[in-house]
């Protein structure tokens, strides 16, 4: 890749072994698949925000913040959001997913660093941040402060969704962890 000619980029890549990079690729693809599957199964008219979902794709982010670190996790969020948009998305849904996803991963990283919370805390916090990020973006874009009325219900549902996601993420993490340890990363 031409990008590798830039020393800064090569440096970043060199910090990761190729095994890690392939794990990154697999997780990104997995995240994208989950995202698409989820939007096919759940109609979003239940909650009136385009792009609002339970967030099964966050299973991947949960795993990746522990297994791969901060930068790859953020990269997964960016690539996944861009890919979903490229697959036939709605500009507004893209913007909301992006703000939501970035808020979620940031909160997860902060919570991870305190070393005080388990998967469940991270997931609940991340999911709540995702919802707040989405509503915040919607309020700014449309200039309506009335949308704040949706916040409580949305956040509570997100917390529940986050707990569910964490439950599902546990076996995934265990498997990925075991595999990566055996590969020596």
């Amino acid at each position, binding site marked *: 890749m031409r990008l590798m000619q830039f020393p800064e980029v090569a440096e970043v890549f060199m910090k990761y072994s190729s095994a890690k990079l392939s794990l990154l690729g697999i997780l990104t693809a997995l995240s994208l698949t989950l995202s698409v599957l989820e939007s096919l199964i759940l109609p979003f008219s239940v909650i*009136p925000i385009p792009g609002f979902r339970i967030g099964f794709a966050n299973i991947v982010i949960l795993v990746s913040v522990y297994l791969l*670190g901060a930068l790859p996790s953020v990269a997964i969020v960016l690539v996944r959001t861009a890919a979903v948009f490229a697959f036939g998305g709605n500009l507004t849904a893209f913007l909301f997913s992006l703000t939501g996803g970035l808020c979620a991963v940031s909160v997860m990283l902060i919570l991870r660093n305190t070393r005080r919370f388990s998967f469940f805390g991270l997931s*609940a916090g991340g999911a709540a941040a995702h919802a707040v990020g989405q509503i915040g973006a919607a309020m700014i874009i449309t200039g309506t402060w009335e949308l704040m*009325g949706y*916040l409580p219900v949305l956040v509570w549902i997100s*917390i529940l969704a986050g707990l569910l996601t964490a439950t599902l993420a546990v076996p995934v993490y265990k498997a990925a962890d075991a595999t990566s340890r055996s590969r020596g990363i």
Partner: protein
Amino acid sequence: MEAMDLSGDKKTSDLQKKPRYSPGLAFCRSDLVLVLCIAVLALFPYTVGKYLQARATSEQSGMAAVLTVDGKEVWREELTGLASETTYSVEFGTEEIVICADASGAWVEASDCPDQICVHTGKLSKVGQAAVCIPFRVVLKIVATNPSQPDEVDAVSGSCGGLYEILFG
């Protein structure tokens, strides 16, 4: 390229440089505290909103439906004492959005937007409620008013009004 080199050297030094995070995999007490805090904090905007709404409603005895495009008001209809059902439609090029109002509330009757969220919101009957059409950046909301406004006019001759500024900037 060096990145392809899987020799032990690079890997062990990597592991030593970066502390590895091991997640707890069970729900613990800190998590519960966190969840409860978030749940309570989420109530905050709701209670603030409700308080403002109640205060606004008690000060004024009437309500009106207001339609804004890009944040600018283009249509207002006093609802208290409205004798008949009123319909208002706006066209943006080839697309249209239709609003209906009567004495008890206002709603988006039809819209050409792809999501139809605004239509599904249903009837707005309390001050502070709103229906939003994000693709058109249109908001229909109920506001509190003082119904006895002496200077209300039905039309202005010599000025095109809010929609003109929105269309022509």
